[in-house]
């Protein structure tokens, strides 16, 4: 018991370290590197002891292992006692007599017409499972199975752990940007996490349409209609913020959107040299992103429009003017606005804006084990509720020369239980008074 308290205290202490010590995952890389190399002590704590990556550090993993070992010991230690108590063998008459002398006992005068058989009926009506261990006494137990809450709660951690392990080994996370009409692979893009078990099966998905929703110029929702491209894939799904599209273990989350104008570059004779779209967003240096047409060394950049009051809705796209800047070897060829259908001369070429589409930033996550995790959460909440809210109560009613004595035992809430005993006693009194001659 003390070991459990100690293990919990150690885990709490380590979690405290997790929020106090700068963590690599939540600190800017250059700041973390500076901290880790500031002096020998900080290097020792952050790097040698790996407190800067606490959730993966040997110390934390050892504490977790100790936690689960302790859980297993507690479970095996309590299994037999729990099983015996579940079987609900009533106490002997002598044991009931001892309880009736105890501090929890409440005595009442024997109501007229009340006898053990009627007390049994009253207890059963109150939800107790009542038996008669002897001629002058009744014993009842309520929420007999509440004891199962204990193993259920403790087992839930193993289920959670299994879910966590499954997710750890199967999780493959990719971020990608797609424009309307574009097809992409579920495992290609900017991979933020590789599954230790290897790449999952690639799925081909097409972005059909993007649905931004604004209210008073404020973005309130964003949807992306996606079609899984494989035989028998079913109808398209819409991924909304907070409601990802899901195919088995693959979730597609939509995060943000923008404009993706589609251009056509033509030579002087009108032949199409290239057709391309620009994903208009700010790059990491805060400059508008663009496309380099390598053959002619032409850079086409489009000024992004943040999703907000100026962001065009779909019906406005056909006439929406985008700001375009075209350069060749740093020589400015064009800087101005273009609407769909307009053509502008850029050097010896012509640039036409065909249409404006939307782009969307997607996260593609493939993992297994989520169901186990949710089952673990459910078991934990059920277990602790079962154990402590519907806690087990045992009530004994002893009839002797003193009258009627109610006694019993409970685990957690003695005052509340005493009040319950009084209520049961009063109920027995009133039943006896109302139906004095009633047969058992």
């Amino acid at each position, binding site marked *: *018991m003390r070991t459990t*308290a100690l293990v919990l*205290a150690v885990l709490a202490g380590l979690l405290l370290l997790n*929020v106090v010590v700068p963590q690599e995952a*939540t600190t800017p890389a250059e700041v973390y590197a500076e901290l880790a190399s500031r002096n020998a002590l900080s290097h020792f704590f952050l790097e040698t002891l790996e407190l800067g990556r606490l*959730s993966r550090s040997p110390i934390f993993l050892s504490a977790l292992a100790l936690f689960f070992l302790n859980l297993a010991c507690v479970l095996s230690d309590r299994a037999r006692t729990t099983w015996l108590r579940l079987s609900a063998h009533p106490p002997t008459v002598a044991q009931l007599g001892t309880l009736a002398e105890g501090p929890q006992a409440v005595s009442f005068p024997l109501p007229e017409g009340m006898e053990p058989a009627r007390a049994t009926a009253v207890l059963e009506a109150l939800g107790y499972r009542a038996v008669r261990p002897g001629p002058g006494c009744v014993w009842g137990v309520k929420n007999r199975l509440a004891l199962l809450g204990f193993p259920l709660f403790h087992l839930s951690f193993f289920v959670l752990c299994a879910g966590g392990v499954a997710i750890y080994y199967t999780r493959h996370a990719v971020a990608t940007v797609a424009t309307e009409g574009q097809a992409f692979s579920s495992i290609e893009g900017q991979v933020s996490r590789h599954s230790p078990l290897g790449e999952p099966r690639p799925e081909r998905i097409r972005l059909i349409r993007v649905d931004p929703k604004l209210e008073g110029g404020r973005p309130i929702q964003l949807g992306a209609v996606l079609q899984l491209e494989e035989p028998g894939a079913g109808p398209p799904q819409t991924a909304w*913020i*907070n409601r990802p599209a899901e195919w088995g273990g693959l979730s597609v989350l939509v995060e943000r959107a923008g404009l993706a104008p589609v251009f056509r570059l033509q030579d002087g004779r009108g032949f199409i040299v290239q057709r391309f779209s620009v994903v208009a967003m700010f790059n990491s240096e805060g400059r508008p992103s663009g496309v380099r047409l390598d053959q002619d060394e032409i850079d086409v950049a489009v000024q992004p429009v943040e999703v907000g009051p100026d962001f065009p809705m779909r019906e406005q796209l056909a006439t929406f003017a985008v700001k375009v800047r075209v350069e060749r070897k740093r020589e400015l060829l064009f800087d101005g606005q273009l609407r769909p259908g307009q053509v502008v001369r850029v050097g010896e070429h012509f640039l036409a804006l065909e249409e404006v589409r939307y782009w969307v930033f997607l996260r593609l996550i493939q993992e297994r084990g989520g169901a186990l995790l949710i089952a673990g959460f459910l078991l934990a909440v059920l277990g602790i*509720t079962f154990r*402590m809210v519907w806690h087990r109560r045992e009530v004994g009613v002893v009839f002797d020369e003193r009258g009627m004595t109610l006694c019993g035992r409970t685990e957690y809430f003695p005052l509340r239980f005493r009040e319950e005993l009084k209520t049961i006693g009063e109920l027995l009194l009133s039943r006896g008074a109302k139906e004095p001659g009633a047969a058992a």
Partner: protein
Amino acid sequence: MSTPFAAIFWATLVVYALVVAAQLFGQIFQRPAWNSRASYGLLFGAALHTALLAWRWISTGHVPTMGTFENALSGGWFIVAMTLWAGWKQRHPLLAAGALPFALVILGWGGVSDTRAGPLVASLQSFWMYIHVFFAWLAYGAFTVACGAGVVYLAKSRRGQNPPPQALARLEELMFRSTVFGFITDAGMIAGGAIWAKKLWGSYWSWDPVETWSLLSWLTYGLALHLRATLRWRGRRLAWVLVFAIITVLMTYWGVNLVMTATAHTFNVG
């Protein structure tokens, strides 16, 4: 917020402050009449508070859960409602003196933040958000009541005080029951939050500072339950544990946003 709304909001805070002052006065100067007056004051304040909550809900069209102000309005209401319930049900009129200061601080902080109303942003449009927030406030309300009961217990069981043993036993049971309720609802909050995080960010758990603090808080209350149920920690020892444990709740809700920027859990999303 509009002027009438602001007037009622600040008036509610004044009523709560007067309730705490009246209970402290009644306790320190042995004037029990002030305690019952304070109880009526608390009822009046709670009625005003409920009206404000409904007003905000109707005017924005969503449950007030967006941004610091709305969270404070809802969270404060839960604390007050649970204090009222526990005080009435457990016959502890003094409980408000221990628990209400938390509601006052939360509401005061919310009142000076950005109070403008707006449509519910996409990241908050989730069934799981409501589960998460509802259980969070139930848990925080229960932990605040446990802490308030602990404060009253410590005050009543000081050397030289001779309260009826039954009163102390009732307080102790209230501390324990509130902690049990808070522990269960806190588990619901963490589970609901994890599922919401999976839908919103693609990951059940990412060791975000707020997530870590909430786990730490849950573990701390789990430890408190273990100490009480298994190692039989009772009385003043248990009261001290619960008074200190509230720090973890305060850090989860506030501290992280105050001292850290590297968290996706910014409550001030409005």
